[in-house]
């Protein structure tokens, strides 16, 4: 009996377990998945909790129920991986020997890495990348009478690079609805040169920020939080004052990856960006945000990796060459508030372009433009997540590889800005 071991039962790990359970011969393979957490979180839902759109109960399900019966589930912390011995040691004293290892351990926030950031944690400094942070922030917002709210991204890369923008758009909507928008100042300090990582999309989103009266402070590289002065300070001594600071702290992979000597300086596992195989270990593969791939660290990316991973694993198990190539495909609904959203679709080489998705010319979703249907798509995605995505079921008309069909190349002659002279 051979062992197919998955570490992490989040979005990526759960999908792999479900898909491989129907592909691997149960007479030949045992599938084991390890996670410390008995609860599975719908992480894209965290964004909505501070604004009361979702309650914590809306984003959780028991981990076990999302996995096939045939899969062995172990709830324990991972102490150490010994890739040269194909062995994983767990906190319960047991160890597992594997033939194949899937790293789906994701990444997490580390506020303690920035001086001063964790001092007033969940008092006047909050995160929304954990369920605790999002819930605490909701409690704070409910009674807040206004002031200056600063959102800061400490360092790239982060899980879901559009979430900070969505957070600001929703904040604008939430405080408007509460009738105190005129008492709330919104500022977004980011290490990026603009609103987003890709140029055209960045210009488009900068336009939305401006329209909503949200200040952007680009190229802000956080050095420390000065709790006495209530400012965040950058490495080049720029100071940004706040009354409440919403932080996206440094994102890193799991500490045990460092202990096991498998990661880079941020504990991300170096892996081939096309085959998803770990650079150092031929029987180790990555899915989702555990790897060092230059793609968005978002669930949609993990989903698009799944087909590629499956194909390459099956080839590798047969001793064949791996032909499937991941293209860095990401597809994200960007909530812009007031029941509208923007949809972006891109990969390693092609930045988000305007057009219609998934059916060229018809949509129903508008790429790189705001619409109500996009917002419904964003909300509907929760159902798709629980019922299709985690189960590894293909979503009709949405393919693993990005397609140019339905997309309009940016006309080189006119300025990109002219595309977004907004049709309100």
């Amino acid at each position, binding site marked *: 009996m051979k062992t197919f071991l998955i570490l992490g039962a989040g979005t990526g790990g759960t999908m792999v377990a479900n898909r491989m359970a129907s592909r691997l011969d149960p007479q030949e393979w045992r599938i084991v998945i390890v996670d410390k957490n008995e609860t599975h979180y719908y992480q894209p839902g965290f964004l909505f909790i501070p604004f009361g759109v979702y309650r914590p109960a809306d984003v959780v399900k028991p981990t076990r129920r999302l996995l096939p019966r045939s899969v062995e589930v172990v709830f324990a912390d991972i102490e150490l991986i010994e890739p040269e011995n194909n062995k994983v040691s767990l906190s319960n004293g047991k160890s597992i020997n594997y033939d194949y290892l899937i790293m789906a351990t994701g990444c997490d926030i580390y506020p303690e890495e920035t001086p001063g950031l964790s001092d007033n944690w969940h008092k006047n400094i909050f995160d929304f990348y954990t369920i605790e942070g999002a819930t605490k922030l909701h409690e704070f917002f409910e009674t807040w009478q206004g002031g200056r709210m600063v959102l800061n991204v400490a360092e*790239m890369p982060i899980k879901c690079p559009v979430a900070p923008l969505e957070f600001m758009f929703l904040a604008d909507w939430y405080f408007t609805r509460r009738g105190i928008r005129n008492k709330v100042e919104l500022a977004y300090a980011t290490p*990026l*040169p603009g609103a987003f990582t890709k140029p055209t999309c960045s210009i488009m989103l900068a336009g939305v920020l401006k329209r909503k009266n949200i200040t952007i402070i680009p*190229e802000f590289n956080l050095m420390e939080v000065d709790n006495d002065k209530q400012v965040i300070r950058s*490495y*080049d001594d720029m100071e940004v004052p706040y009354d409440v600071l919403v932080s996206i702290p440094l994102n890193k992979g799991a500490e045990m990856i460092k202990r096991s000597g498998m990661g880079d*300086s941020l504990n991300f596992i170096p892996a081939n960006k096309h085959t998803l195989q770990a650079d150092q270990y031929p029987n180790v593969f990555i899915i989702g945000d555990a790897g060092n791939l*230059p793609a968005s660290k978002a669930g949609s990316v993990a989903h698009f990796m799944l087909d590629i991973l499956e194909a390459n694993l099956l080839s590798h198990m047969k001793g064949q060459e791996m032909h499937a190539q991941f293209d860095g495909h990401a597809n994200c609904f960007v909530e812009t508030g007031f029941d509208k959203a923007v949809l972006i679709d891109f990969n390693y080489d092609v930045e988000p372009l305007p057009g219609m998705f998934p059916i060229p010319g018809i949509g129903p979703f508008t790429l790189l433009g705001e619409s109500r249907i996009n917002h419904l798509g964003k909300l509907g995605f929760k159902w798709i997540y629980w019922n299709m995505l985690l189960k590894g079921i293909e979503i009709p008309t949405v393919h693993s590889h990005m397609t140019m069909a339905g997309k309009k190349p940016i006309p080189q002659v006119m300025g990109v800005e002219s595309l977004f002279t907004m049709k309100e």
Partner: protein
Amino acid sequence: MTHPLLANLKLNEEGFMTDKSQWTKEIAVEIAKQEGIEALTEAHWKIIDFCRKTGEPTGKAPTLRTITDGSGVSTKELFTLFPKGPAKKVAKISGLGKPEGCV
């Protein structure tokens, strides 16, 4: 005015060199000037050399963390030497591509 040394450089739309073989120390000095760094000191060269060494085998520019972890220079110092985005600036001056951390 573009310096004559920079006139024939192959660059991508973001100003990163696309043909590594074109790089020389003299070109680095001129790119640095364009990036607002008037003179490259020994401290600058220590980092440029480190980045070229790390970037050589893969052609990939090191991220900010790789530079601070590997060269022993503190992040604060790095920002003093190469203000604003140090990783991007060093990559440009060293003739490497855009650091892949900026996704």
